[in-house]
């Protein structure tokens, strides 16, 4: 039977198992929107900005492991997806964006709402397509989902000219995808795995560093097996938080610029790094020439380009984290049972000592709310049973430091691109996937305003997303750099006008709550957690002077950390330029 392009799109999405689309209409996608009008199985979530739609699909994907789907119109609709695509691309998140395009015969004519979105998004997608013939449509959609979700996952965009959605063709859905230029390698090289096992057996001061790849490959169980069998402590990058239980005795938390003292010390003193699904980002390594000076490095990654891109590697293993870790554990079990703990006794004791000496810390205050305190209370009052997203800035780092993530897919944060405005729509996407879970965006007052319009979406679809604003009236992370490295010259980081977030929430039909004193924090959180049918904005007025520590200044080595305030500087009269 012949189907129109629009019908093929709908049919293909259903066959891919899609239940929700995040989108926004416009002229050239109306053929598709018309079919959604009375479709019972496919639900479109109408966001209030296309950027919100892509972040929501991304949050949905991170929380579920399934691809997030977006439908937008041509021109401005499509260009509004760019930040979302770049965010998903940097963090390897499977998202499929369908963008409308002007009719094929108008392409290249600067037609109304025409943008070369395939050209624009080429460097920020894993792959993209322009479908010029309806006969190619089903195969293209199949390929797009396949590419987005396999190998190192990532976003794929499909550009759909209006006439292609109108034209008819015989519908054929290919079961199998064959792409001769795309064959991800899942099994690790056996010999390399043996080499890695050999290094692990010999190591006296080893650490594992787990990244987002462990989460995308659902390898948490295997990672835990490896760590517990060999008694090797586990560090998790920002993207890897939740891959291994944060409350586990072997967890060392996050490394890098705002990582824990003990994680950074461990890397610098280690004789072996077993790195899985992480790519040695500069925020993780600090000054590269001084990174892990004593360590041999085993690097497991599905993407060959990640290996030897930034650091020297002794044992490279290209493969899927889950399978390689499984094989590695098997290999280690084969060899004679060693006294794993005994070999590392001194090392584990040293790490315990570092942990005790310099845990993440802050000074509690009776009068003003410390932002870290808010995160701690969120953790305690939810008992850690929540999906947490973050914005970008100090809020993101405090969330990463003070919330303990025990399960994968519970921490949604823009690691690679560092996109302010990501957290709230991402939380919304996760809430669509898990309507009954507690989903909280730990936000900054600056970032939240970048996609605040999605309050309307949450109200419409009764999504009880909680936003916890750590309101410091500043672009706090920028202010922190200016205080530490620019002689306290606060150039355009003071947000003179921050709206009354409680009133804003109420104006949208959401719940707005505020705490100005530490004693009010618990009540606000408890009140918010009770709300099940609409979004809640919690405005925590926090100490604007607070900074994120430890801090490895840009360009410094990991062990050149600033641990905290040297001594109380005398209060200077500060002038903020706005």
């Amino acid at each position, binding site marked *: 039977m012949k189907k129109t392009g629009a019908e093929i799109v709908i049919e293909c999405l259903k066959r891919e198992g899609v239940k929700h689309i995040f989108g926004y209409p416009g002229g050239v996608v109306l053929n598709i929107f018309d079919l959604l009008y009375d479709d019972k199985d496919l639900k479109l979530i109408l966001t209030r900005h296309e950027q919100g739609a892509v972040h929501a699909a991304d949050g949905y994907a991170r929380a579920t492991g399934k691809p997030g789907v977006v439908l937008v119109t041509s021109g401005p609709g499509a260009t509004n997806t760019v930040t979302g695509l770049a965010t998903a691309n940097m963090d390897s998140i499977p998202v499929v964006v369908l963008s409308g395009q002007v009719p094929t015969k108008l392409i290249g004519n600067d037609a109304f709402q025409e943008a070369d979105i*395939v*050209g624009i998004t*080429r*460097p920020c997608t*894993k*792959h993209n397509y*322009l479908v*010029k013939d309806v006969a190619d449509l089903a195969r293209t959609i199949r390929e797009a989902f396949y*590419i987005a979700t396999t190998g190192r996952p990532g976003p794929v965009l499909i550009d759909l000219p209006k006439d292609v959605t109108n034209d008819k063709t015989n519908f054929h859905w290919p079961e199998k995808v064959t*792409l*001769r*230029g*795309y064959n991800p390698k899942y099994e690790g090289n056996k010999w390399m795995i043996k080499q890695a096992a050999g290094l692990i057996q010999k190591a006296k001061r080893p650490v594992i560093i787990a990244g987002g790849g462990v989460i995308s490959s659902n390898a948490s169980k295997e990672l835990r097996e490896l760590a517990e069998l060999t008694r090797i402590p586990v560090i998790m990058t920002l993207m890897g938080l939740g891959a291994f239980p944060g409350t586990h005795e072997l967890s060392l938390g996050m490394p890098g610029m705002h990582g824990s003292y003990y994680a950074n010390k461990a890397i610098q003193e280690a004789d072996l790094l077993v790195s899985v699904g992480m790519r040695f980002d500069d925020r993780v390594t600090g000054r590269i020439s001084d990174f892990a000076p004593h360590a041999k490095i085993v690097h497991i990654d599905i*993407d*060959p*380009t990640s290996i*030897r*891109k930034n650091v020297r590697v002794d044992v490279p293993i290209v493969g899927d984290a889950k399978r390689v870790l499984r094989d590695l554990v098997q290999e280690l079990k084969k060899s004679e049972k060693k006294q794993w703990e005994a070999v590392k006794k001194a090392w584990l004791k040293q790490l315990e000592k570092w942990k005790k000496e310099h845990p993440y810390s802050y000074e509690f205050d009776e009068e003003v709310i410390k932002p870290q305190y808010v995160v701690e209370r969120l953790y305690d009052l939810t008992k850690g049973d929540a999906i947490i997203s973050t914005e970008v800035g100090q809020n993101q780092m405090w969330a990463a430091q003070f919330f303990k993530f025990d399960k994968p897919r519970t921490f949604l944060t823009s690691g690679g691109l560092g996109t302010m405005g990501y957290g709230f729509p991402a939380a919304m996407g996760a809430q669509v996937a898990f309507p009954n879970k507690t989903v909280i965006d730990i936000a900054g007052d600056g970032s939240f305003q970048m996609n605040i319009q999605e309050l309307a979406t949450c109200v419409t679809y009764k999504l009880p997303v909680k936003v916890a604003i750590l309101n410091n009236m500043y672009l706090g992370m920028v202010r922190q750099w200016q205080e530490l490295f620019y002689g306290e010259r606060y150039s355009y980081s003071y947000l003179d006008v921050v709206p009354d977030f409680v009133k804003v929430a109420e104006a949208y039909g959401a719940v707005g709550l505020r705490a100005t004193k530490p004693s009010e924090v618990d009540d606000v959180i408890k009140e918010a957690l009770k709300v099940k049918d609409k979004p809640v904005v919690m405005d925590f007025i926090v100490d604007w002077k607070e900074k994120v520590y430890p801090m490895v200044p840009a360009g410094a080595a990991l062990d050149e950390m600033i641990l905290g305030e040297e001594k109380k500087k005398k209060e200077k009269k500060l002038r903020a330029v706005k």
Partner: protein
Amino acid sequence: MRHTISVLVENKFGVLARISSLFSGRGYNIESLSVGETIDPKTSIMTIVTTGDDRIIEQITKQLNKLIDVIKVTDLTEVDHVEREMVLIKVAPKQDDKAEVLRLTEIFRGRVVDSSPKTYTVEITGDESKINAFVELMRPFGIKEFVRTGKIAIAREGFKK
């Protein structure tokens, strides 16, 4: 070091743009790039001449391989191979020098493919050193225009990896 990389690609819309934007986006050099269909019209071969240290060349080949439309990447520098380039040179010798230009063209097994009262257009094919040598010899006679195809290269049979 300089590398000649042969890239077999799907003959699809936008492939050239994907490859060139990979190079520009990551700050790699392209000294020359030439593209043409292979015997299978569904594929093309791009011959790319680039420079970089070992780490960069390794990244370039890996990044190329990562592109969905790239089927195969061969660093020909690592295998025995033949390379050729063609140039068209328009020279404007003085009346007295014309014979010398023709003689040199002959020595280099070039051909005059066009002539006008004031100019000869010479076609030369060869490897880089031959072409450079010819260009240097022509320079004193006055080169008016100069186009080169960019290098194409192929592995010698039996040396293919």
